[in-house]
């Protein structure tokens, strides 16, 4: 089994459990390591197990197959996963990833275990199947359930059947006759009826709605907010955990004390996180802080924008940090202290990424039309920055603009990684037209940047090497790297580096030119930065925000980011709307 490394031990009962932190700490752990982590757990079902399984589900088929082979080759090692947690983990792994024969394999495995562990394993399986946690609606889940029903006792089967019986008609009648239901407007009543009819076989939906309508907090809401609360619940009414969280919010004093706008924002935020339990926990922890009520409505709104987004760049890491920061005692002893800590939390943004890393596929559907005109022209002694060498000159056309791209005819080192002409063309098609207009040529140098030696001497660190340079003359050079760089990295770097040239061409020197004033004011007014790197200077803030702009453009997260950085997005909108690039 692989070494899991320094994984922080977490207790399921601890209020400090933080799925995001666990996810981060396990991100680079291999399949064997994740299995070991599962084996080390002490009593599922647990949120930690869910995180590990989620990470396992992201592994490639090859990685999983390799792990399966390793387990098959060492059944003793597999069976040595002691305890019911290990039994559960192993069974779930097999059922989930080695389906459709997972259940049979699990049963075979169980039969090889000592009797007390067999029993424990079957108990866990019973619990899983009872809770329908096995891949709901999937073929595997059906297989698991079918097999499961064959091995439980008749009494257990009866219990399960009873639990799954649709609600009695009287339950629905009781709901529709309740005062809070009757107080809803006709359209909302009709919407609830439709949801109930669609989910007639699922008692959880009816009970979730009845639970919300019967809650104390709901009774206190005005008609408009009742409609919003119900709308929030109906985003995922079949999930009991979500239904419980909606009730918790509706019952919270913070919601009652908030302005109408913040109340709406709170409910919309929780609804947007309807399938993200750790995310909702952060929001509920936030409103649990008495200091939240001491903030102005604008501050509350900004915190909710910051913590409540579905974006992985800013909000998800902010929530993870918030949950780590907030403990059973809250973020401070007194409401005033808590309010100060919340203000500090958003001002410091310690959770921000070092540098924005665009997720895979970010720009795939966003780049402009481009064409690489072939054949390339051979240039005998092209003056690359590393020295003269034979090059192939390609004409890359993006939206009618032609850019010369010089590729090395022969790579300088077989060990190094180079971007292809297609990647470079795609990269050029990803940057804003205003930036592209400033690019005069691109060179993919066959060798490392000779200037690296000077920088290594000046900064006493030989471990940095150039990836890209961009001059005010519009010349971009891309250098070979030890590790292959993905298209997203190239696109992001091009947007960032040519962004420097763009801001300089429009606003001049950031230290002295007054044309930068609007951007500097926007940094203060927005209060949120795209990354830690962005905080270094207005130049870097512009380049990173421009990259963020293109990362989220056209995605559901664009609206969130516009709320987080409204002024800077407005300025970028204006810059990119200029008719003459």
């Amino acid at each position: 089994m692989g070494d899991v490394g320094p994984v922080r031990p977490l207790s399921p009962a601890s209020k400090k459990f933080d799925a995001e932190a666990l996810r981060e700490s396990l991100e680079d752990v291999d399949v064997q390591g994740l299995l070991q982590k599962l084996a080390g757990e002490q009593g599922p079902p647990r949120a930690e197990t869910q995180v590990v399984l989620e990470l396992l589900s992201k592994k490639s088929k090859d990685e999983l197959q390799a792990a399966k082979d390793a387990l098959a080759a060492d059944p003793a090692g597999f069976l040595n996963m002691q305890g019911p947690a290990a039994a559960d983990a192993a069974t779930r792994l097999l059922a989930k990833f080695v389906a459709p024969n997972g259940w049979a394999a699990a049963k075979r495995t169980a039969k090889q275990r000592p009797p007390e562990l067999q029993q424990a394993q079957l108990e866990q399986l019973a619990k899983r199947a009872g809770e329908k946690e096995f891949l709901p609606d999937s073929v595997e889940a059906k297989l698991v359930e079918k097999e499961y029903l064959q091995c439980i006792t008749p009494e257990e089967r009866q219990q399960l059947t009873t639990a799954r019986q649709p609600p009695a008609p009287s339950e629905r009648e009781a709901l529709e006759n309740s005062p809070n239901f009757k107080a809803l407007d006709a359209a909302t009543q009709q919407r609830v009826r439709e949801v109930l009819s669609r989910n007639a076989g699922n008692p959880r939906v009816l009970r979730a709605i009845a639970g919300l309508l019967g809650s104390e907090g709901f009774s206190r809401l005005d008609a408009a907010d009742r409609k919003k609360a119900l709308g929030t619940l109906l985003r995922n009414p079949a999930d009991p955990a979500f239904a419980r969280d909606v009730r918790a919010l509706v019952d919270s004093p913070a919601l009652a004390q908030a302005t109408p706008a913040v109340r709406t924002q709170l409910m919309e935020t929780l609804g947007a996180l309807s399938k993200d339990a750790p995310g909702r926990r952060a929001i509920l922890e936030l409103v649990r802080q008495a200091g939240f009520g001491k903030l102005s409505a604008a501050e509350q709104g900004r915190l909710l924008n910051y913590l409540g987004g579905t974006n992985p760049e800013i909000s998800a890491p902010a929530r993870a940090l918030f949950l780590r920061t907030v403990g059973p005692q809250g973020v401070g002893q007194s409401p005033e202290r808590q309010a100060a800590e919340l203000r500090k939390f958003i001002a410091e943004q310690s959770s921000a990424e070092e540098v924005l890393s665009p997720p895979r596929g970010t720009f795939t559907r966003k780049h402009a039309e481009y064409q690489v005109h072939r054949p390339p022209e051979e240039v005998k002694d092209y003056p690359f920055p590393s020295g003269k060498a034979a090059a192939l000159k390609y004409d890359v056309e993006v939206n009618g603009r032609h850019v010369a791209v010089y590729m090395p005819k022969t790579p300088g080192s077989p060990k190094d990684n180079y971007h292809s002409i297609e990647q470079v063309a795609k990269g050029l098609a990803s940057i804003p037209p205003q930036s592209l207009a400033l690019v005069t040529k691109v060179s993919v140098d066959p060798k490392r940047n000779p200037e690296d030696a000077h920088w290594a001497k000046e900064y006493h660190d030989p471990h940095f090497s150039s990836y890209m340079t961009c001059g005010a003359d519009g010349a971009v050079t891309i250098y070979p790297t030890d590790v292959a760089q993905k298209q997203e990295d190239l696109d992001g770097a091009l947007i960032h580096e040519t962004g420097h040239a763009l801001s300089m061409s429009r606003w001049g020197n950031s230290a002295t030119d007054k044309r930068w004033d609007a951007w500097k004011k926007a940094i203060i007014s927005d209060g949120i930065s795209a990354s830690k790197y962005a905080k270094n200077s207005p130049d870097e803030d512009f380049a990173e925000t421009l990259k963020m702009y293109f990362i989220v453009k056209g995605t559901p997260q664009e609206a969130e980011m516009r709320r987080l950085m409204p002024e800077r997005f407005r300025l970028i909108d204006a810059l990119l709307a200029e008719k003459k690039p």
Partner: protein
Amino acid sequence: MTRPAHPGTIVYVDGATQQEVRRLPVEEVPESMRFRATARGLVPVVKVVAIEDGNQRSLLEYGPDGEFLFSTLQRKR
């Protein structure tokens, strides 16, 4: 391209603090890094702002009027 006279020194600034960390006589800088090409010809580099964060470092070079001349994006090997 004709080379204008260089003022003689290049100031190195820590981007995080915006403080000057050292000042190098231009003779101690490789020739190719003393000037950068712009649309209006070669311009002397007089200031380098380094911003390092994690595995990434940006080196931004500026001319006598504070104009942006050149950026280098480095990554840790």
